[in-house]
């Protein structure tokens, strides 16, 4: 979706129970929801919207595995090839001594990798401006948004009818 080129019609709801019912209704009416915005994760919303499970944790596992191998192999190289030092009379290659740092690097790679991946996928980062439909959707309002770029007046009326039928407290439009 290009930014600044989307006509959005959205309704604000006061409560997540009303929102869940409305989303169900929208699915039954075959309305094409652009997105749903809530101030906190609403239980049971993902399956109704038909969102598949996030694969971010798969990425996390891969980053963790890379960090694990990197940490262990790097220390092995340092202590056996590059700069061997004797610690406490132990052999140069002492796996138990490498494990804490290997663990730390596994966590570091997984954590940082997942954060970066998340930011890239969501198109977020320093300097990006993410327009919000309404400031209150980060506070106490629950929002269902429809993209009305190609919608004719009939379709818009139908969406407005849907909002009033499902108990939206406000209905607005915005171009983002």
């Amino acid at each position, binding site marked *: 979706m290009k930014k600044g080129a989307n006509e959005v019609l959205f309704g604000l709801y006061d409560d997540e129970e009303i929102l869940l019912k409305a989303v169900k209704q929208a699915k039954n009416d075959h309305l094409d929801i652009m997105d749903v915005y809530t101030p906190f994760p609403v239980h049971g919303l993902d399956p109704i919207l038909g969102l598949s499970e996030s694969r971010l944790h798969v990425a996390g*596992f891969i980053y963790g595995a890379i960090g694990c191998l990197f940490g262990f192999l790097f220390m092995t190289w340092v202590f056996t090839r590059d700069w*061997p030092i*004797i610690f406490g*009379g*132990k052999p140069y290659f002492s796996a*138990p001594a490498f*494990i804490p740092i290997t663990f730390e690097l596994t966590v570091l790679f997984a954590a940082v990798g997942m954060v970066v991946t998340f930011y890239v996928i969501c198109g977020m980062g320093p300097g990006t401006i993410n327009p919000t439909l309404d400031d209150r959707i980060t506070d106490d309002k629950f929002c269902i948004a429809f993209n009305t770029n190609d919608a004719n007046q009939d379709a818009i009326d139908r969406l407005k009818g849907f909002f009033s039928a499902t108990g939206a407290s406000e209905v607005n439009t915005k171009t983002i």
Partner: protein
Amino acid sequence: MNQFTFEARQKATLGGFMILGLLCMGLTAIGDDGHYTRLWSNYLHNSVFFTGIALFSLFIISAFTTAWAGWYSQFKRIFEAYSLFLIPGLVLMLVIVAGLWGGMHHLYHWADPNTLDPNSTHYDPILVGKSSFLNANWYTFGTLVFMAIWIFFAWKMRQISLDEDTNGTTDWNHHHRLRIWAAAFLPIAGFTSAAVVWQWVMSVDSHWYSTLFAWYCGASWFVSAIALGIMSLAWLKSKGYYERVSSEHLHDLGKFLFAFSIFWTYLWFSQFMLIWYGNNGEETVYFFERMNNYPVLFYGNLAINFILPFFILMRNDTKRKYGTLIFASILVLFGHWLDFFLMIKPGVLHTKHEMSGHHGAGHGDAGHHGTDHAADAGHHVADAAGHGADHAADAAHGVAETAAHHASSAFEAGFSLPGLLEVGTFLGFLAFFLYMFLHNLSKANLEPKNEPYLGESYHHHV
């Protein structure tokens, strides 16, 4: 169905396994040495394992209650029923105490009076130094008094919970009282469990000590209690009970199994690495013996209790499916039984050899040997500059010689690896534990009534 019926067929099955266990113990006794060391050590191993599971079930209830956990309140009666096994557990442990006073077993080297006698060939100055704690009086006191305290808490919290079913009010008076008892039990459980673990388990290696040992044992019991809880819940569900317990609850129990397997590994490794790094002869002897004489159990322990549950339970869906979750639970329960086997058996075998005179004369010096070798090891390090690896190997060899004083590496049935008789005894004890569990479960409503968090538990969603 809110009332569990303990059917005659189930009683018969469990009774059959208990008879199998007794039979295995009898067979163990027939082929045993004069002190019945294999039989006694199997008995100690299983008694400690299942008593500890009961203790940590009470700990789990207390921790969850203190943490305001609501999700588990539907099936808290399972852990309550587990915790009541502390009463038979006390009887089991009192047999060990009686054996200690009667000189019937030689599980603990410190219990041999000759070790305290300066004129004896078995005189052991290290054990003299520890004798103010490692003695029959303290052992009896710890077992009797500490277990009595646990039983009192288990009974008290069970009473409040049962009373809530009939007399519960909406000012949640029962729950408030339960929270006070639960919070009081946590520190008590922490200190007393450590003290009895030192006596019951750690003192079989009577020269050795580790400050992390109690936590490590406790984590082992905790994971076992969770694994057994998952399997009990799945079995009860398959019988049509607990209809409102869903994969959401199993998911959370699976997370506990996963997380505390990692926690156990963390403690295991912390204990290992500090001792390995310190390279102090009197500490390394514990691991040196296990790594060299029990390699299958030593490395298998890590594989079965860490690597397998870690990779099996890592994904979201494996914690929600019966197949993978129960497979991991069986692995972990048996794995921690093996873990306790490895804690207890090598030390008992060493004591057995001492008692039967294999190393009798040499033993008085063992402490000094340890010190000498540690000094040697230090010396090697001092002049090691340049050829580190070779000398490190020498230093390790020094420890190996110390370890050689403590155990023979020859295969010993029932000690080097658990045999069929050990597994049979385990099944007998497991059946006894489950019999008492189901008996206590059938005495109360399966789901508590008037419990403030019940609604949260019904609607639990992860």
